[in-house]
């Protein structure tokens, strides 16, 4: 189980609302037990992350906190203030209720355990 997702899933057209979003850098690892997904979300506090799993599509939406207080002016800008959106289509059923998420140092780590039916089964030779 090496090809764990379709990495080319692009940001969907938002319904009527024009909102600028960008795709964060991410990394997917899969083994016989679970998907492990790392998403880089610098500048995003825990409260600004929304996760959603519906019909094997995982959606991560995250907003950067506005780090520029009043009275400050920008002299040079390279960091993008845009919010993040990542949609991944999972190619195996996962147990939604056992999904765990951790946000640390601007990196979101997700663990999505596979459902029993999706796990490889050893068949003994008699």
């Amino acid at each position, binding site marked *: 189980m090496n090809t764990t997702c379709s990495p080319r899933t692009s940001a969907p057209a938002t319904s009527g609302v024009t909102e600028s979003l*960008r795709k964060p850098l991410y*990394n997917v690892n899969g083994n016989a037990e679970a998907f492990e997904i790392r998403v880089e979300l*610098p500048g*995003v506090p825990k409260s600004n992350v929304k996760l959603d799993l519906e019909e094997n599509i995982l959606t991560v939406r995250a907003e950067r906190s506005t780090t*520029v207080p009043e009275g400050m002016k920008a*002299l040079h*800008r390279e*960091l993008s203030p845009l919010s993040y959106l990542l949609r991944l289509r999972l190619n195996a059923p996962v147990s939604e209720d056992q999904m765990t998420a951790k946000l640390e140092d601007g*990196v979101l780590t997700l663990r999505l355990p596979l459902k029993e039916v999706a796990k490889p089964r050893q068949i003994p030779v008699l």
Partner: protein
Amino acid sequence: MHEYEAERIFRLKNSNQTNQAMKLIRTNPFSLNRVSDFDEWFRHPLAGLPSLSSFINNLGEVFPGVAGDKLAVDVHEDKDNYFASFEVPGVKKEDVKIELNNGMLTVSAEKREKDGEKESSYSLTRSVSVPEIVNAEAIVAKLEDGILTVTLPKQERSKPRTITLN
């Protein structure tokens, strides 16, 4: 005539709040302002061209890994401080090194990634030129949500001061 000139200088000084206006100040023969501090950040030969660095940065978004060795930076300013913010997701506090040397602020971050059993690490670095008016002794840094913010306080003398005639 004199009134007109006075008004113009006044106007330029007031518009000092915006970046565009700073460019005006440099060409203003009546102003005693030296070249704005903004330029000083990037005038250093090693600081790199900001336009180039943002280009490389954009390239990195299209081809992750291409420009992955250079940290993106934002510079902000308020009355008392400069703030340089670097994006360092996944980097631990102990893996960040900040150095001030000859007016250059250099940030190096060691990024460790665990890919299943494999563990890899690579370092990211960025230098920016620091204006002279920064009080080097008072520079502080904090790491939060993958953003490293370096606060560079301006020295007292560079804060606006009113001089009264005796």
